[in-house]
């Protein structure tokens, strides 16, 4: 089957009566899962698996991937309106989304996020389609040496995120790196910082940590402060018409900033190609990039719409990249992709090279699912905004207990583990303290996620390629980029300081 043939067949299938209803249901299911804090794409797909047994392959693929595609969109809505990341990858949206809501611009932020998601996802899907002829080569680009250096590069973005208070940001990032060491050391088999607890042997689970840092801490804050989530207006809920107007104005701004969307989407797609990094760092790096290149750097973190657009575009563009190695070799780049592979298996599909040869139409069904799923998510997401916005005007004494219940349930269900609720609580307290003392929680999260990737892959890179592994062409290029980027940041930091003095 040629690529053009596969493209046309995939397009017709995606819109056919056999497939589209499943795609629609899957996407709506994903959107709702995304809105609920703690439930991720991983969870949506796991829930969808049992339904696959009776489905045709094309319908099943559209159903399960649709459920995964819209999760980040739903999560963005929750992040902006409730200061609670709906999924881990929406943590970066927390930096500028909630401040916009406080200024009474919640609708605008959601509108921008929804459209940025759709554009990012489309970018990632198109990139995947273009890469198809060289997909195998592309998905083998990133091995341990490349991942180490790329993680370092991502880590330098802490410098951009925390420019205003470099000392505190570095403290937070280093704390994150230290927390990444909790658990069983893969090299020596020694348990580190587990306090002899069996539950910590796998390290700190990411979802409860993110929920604690960004959601539970906000609930504490809201409860102590009192009032409601939208404290800017005089306690009156925003009218429906005003919300609609804001959504469309947010979308308009996103369209005007199409170049930013493109750049952040390419960051997302590239980082999606890297196995094991996940989409949370991609969103933060894109956010850092948006801030770095913005004319108005000072307003980032205080409600700049570019921060929302950058983060949301990247975290949906990741999907295209993550699918690459899954399709090319049947090698899942993330836990969600591992479930997708399990799903394909149940559907009786062959994955890997044979899929590229004999089932190219299904590959295109996947690509169209990402695009159409996100379009469905954007349209239905708009309908969700209004009722959810009204909830943000509820008194904190009503809202906080409800949200706390949902958040802690979210922490529990990921691994069916009570202990992860404790982690969410502990990190909620830590997050609240950090917020009060203005230490960057984002910097800490980046340190945590990347510390894990750096340590593991550094060891592997050293074992595989020896102590000079960074001298190979791709790692060397990345090293140069990292050094230039870091040097430039240090230079501007010193320059700005002199200016102030």
């Amino acid at each position, binding site marked *: 089957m040629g690529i053009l043939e596969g493209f046309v067949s995939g397009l017709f299938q995606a819109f056919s009566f056999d497939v589209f209803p499943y795609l629609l249901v899957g996407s709506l299911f994903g959107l709702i899962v995304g809105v609920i804090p703690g439930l991720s794409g991983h969870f949506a797909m*796991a829930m969808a698996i049992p339904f696959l047994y009776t489905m045709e392959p094309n319908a099943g693929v559209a159903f399960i991937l649709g459920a995964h595609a819209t999760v980040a969109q739903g999560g963005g809505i929750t992040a902006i309106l409730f200061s609670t990341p709906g999924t881990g990858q929406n943590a970066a949206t927390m930096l500028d989304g909630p401040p916009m809501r406080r200024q009474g611009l919640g609708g605008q932020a959601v509108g921008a996020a929804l459209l940025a998601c759709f554009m990012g996802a489309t970018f990632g899907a198109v990139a995947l389609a273009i890469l198809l002829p060289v997909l195998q080569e592309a998905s083998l680009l990133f091995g341990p040496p490349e991942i180490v250096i790329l993680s370092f590069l991502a880590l330098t973005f802490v410098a951009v995120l925390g420019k205003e208070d470099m000392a505190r940001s570095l403290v937070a990032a280093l704390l994150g790196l230290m927390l990444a060491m909790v658990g069983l050391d893969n090299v020596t088999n020694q348990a580190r910082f587990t306090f002899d607890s069996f539950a910590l042997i796998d390290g700190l689970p990411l979802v409860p940590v993110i929920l604690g840092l960004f959601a539970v801490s906000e609930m504490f804050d809201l409860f102590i402060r009192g009032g409601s989530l939208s404290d800017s207006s005089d306690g009156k809920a925003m009218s429906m018409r005003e919300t609609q107007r804001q959504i469309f104005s947010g979308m308009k701004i996103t369209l005007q900033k199409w170049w930013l969307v493109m750049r952040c989407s390419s960051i997302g797609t590239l980082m999606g190609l890297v196995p094991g990094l996940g989409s949370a760092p991609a969103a933060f790096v894109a956010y850092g990039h948006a801030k770095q290149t913005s004319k108005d750097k000072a307003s980032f973190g205080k409600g700049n719409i570019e921060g929302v657009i950058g983060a949301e575009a990247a975290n949906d563009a990741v999907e295209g990249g993550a699918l690459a190695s899954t399709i090319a070799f049947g090698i899942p780049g993330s836990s969600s992709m591992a479930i997708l592979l399990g799903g394909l298996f149940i559907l009786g599909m062959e994955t890997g090279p044979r899929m590229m040869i004999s089932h190219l139409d299904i590959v295109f069904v996947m690509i169209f699912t990402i695009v159409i799923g996100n379009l469905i998510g954007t349209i239905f997401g708009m309908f969700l905004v209004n009722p959810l916005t009204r909830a943000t005007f509820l008194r904190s004494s009503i809202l906080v207990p409800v949200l706390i219940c949902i958040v802690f349930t979210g922490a529990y269900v990921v*691994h069916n583990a009570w202990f992860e609720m404790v982690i969410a609580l502990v990190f909620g307290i830590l997050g609240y303290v950090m917020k009060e003392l203005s230490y960057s929680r984002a910097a800490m999260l980046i340190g945590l996620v990347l510390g894990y990737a750096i340590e593991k892959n550094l060891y592997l890179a050293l074992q595989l390629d020896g102590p000079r592994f960074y001298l190979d062409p791709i790692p060397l290029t990345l090293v140069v980029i990292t050094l230039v980027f870091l040097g430039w940041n240090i230079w501007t930091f010193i320059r700005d300081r002199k200016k102030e003095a």
Partner: protein
Amino acid sequence: MKNTLFRTATALAVMIPTLFMAGQSQAEDLSAAEAFYDGNTINWIVPYSPGGGYDEYSRLIIPYFEKYTGARVRLQNNPGAGGMRGANDIYRAPKDGLTVGIVNGSALVTNQLADIEGAIYEFENYGFLGRMVADQRVLAISTTGEFDTIEEMLEAGSTFKIGATGLGGSTYVDALVAGELFNLDQDIIHGFDSSSVIRQAMLRRDIVGMWGSYGSAIQDVEDGMQKIVLQSGQERTDAIPDAPTVLELAERMQVGDEKMAVLRAWQGLNDVGRPVVTPPGIPADRLAFLQRAFEQAMNDPEMIEEAQSSGRDLTFANGERMAQIATDAAVMPESAEAFFVEAVAGGI
């Protein structure tokens, strides 16, 4: 180790009454148990994430297990600590017969031998419904690499790299066993996140090959990306006629008695495979009823056909036989036990 005799004695002490009770209750009427399960809900614990082999096997059998128990079966993924968390969860679940689960038998046995921290179970004390499949372990190498056969690897001029996941995990222990038997000039690179990442490393030619289950290698073999050069088991399976078994090679190379003992112990561990277990001490009639239902489910023609069409091997053993295999696996000569304890702890 001195406690081998003691362990055998304990095992027998547990086994005999269990068998006796099972035998007795089999003769008894199971209608009470049948009534108990009818419409009740059974929790089926999978100690790994959705999408893996254990998850797929579980989802394959569950509809048939529901059919023959009359109960609703709820699958629950409890991943963590390399499957030990789920195994512990099953072990300490209420003894009402409403919790079952599929476990990684050989890993549980070796972890117990090595006294790994956190293992709360005594493997032979689980109630055994039976086994879905025995482990068929294979050494797969890249088709684009420098080697074609195991013989070439034996005569390799320089050290080659084998990928493995965690220190002490099964991909690691298998590689150590082969290294011990055949004095392979290998460097085991452990610390890969999952077998998927090892496969990527193999395609990137970072490493030469990896040990793993036949089920997870088969697709890459059919795609021409990997080649199986060595397999576990008593004799070559029909599906892999060209690769010698470890046993064959060991006999040909006359590795000596001590090494043969390690090999036999390893084969015993592979036989444990993927058993379905209950917590210890559930009522005998309920265990007998579940064993019967599991056997019926495993022999359901429709289920066998479904397994075949999805390329899943089945090597059923009933509950009684499985209990025997489990007991046998834990008993090994002193030197072999020392080897596995050392291997699992990552000391070699």
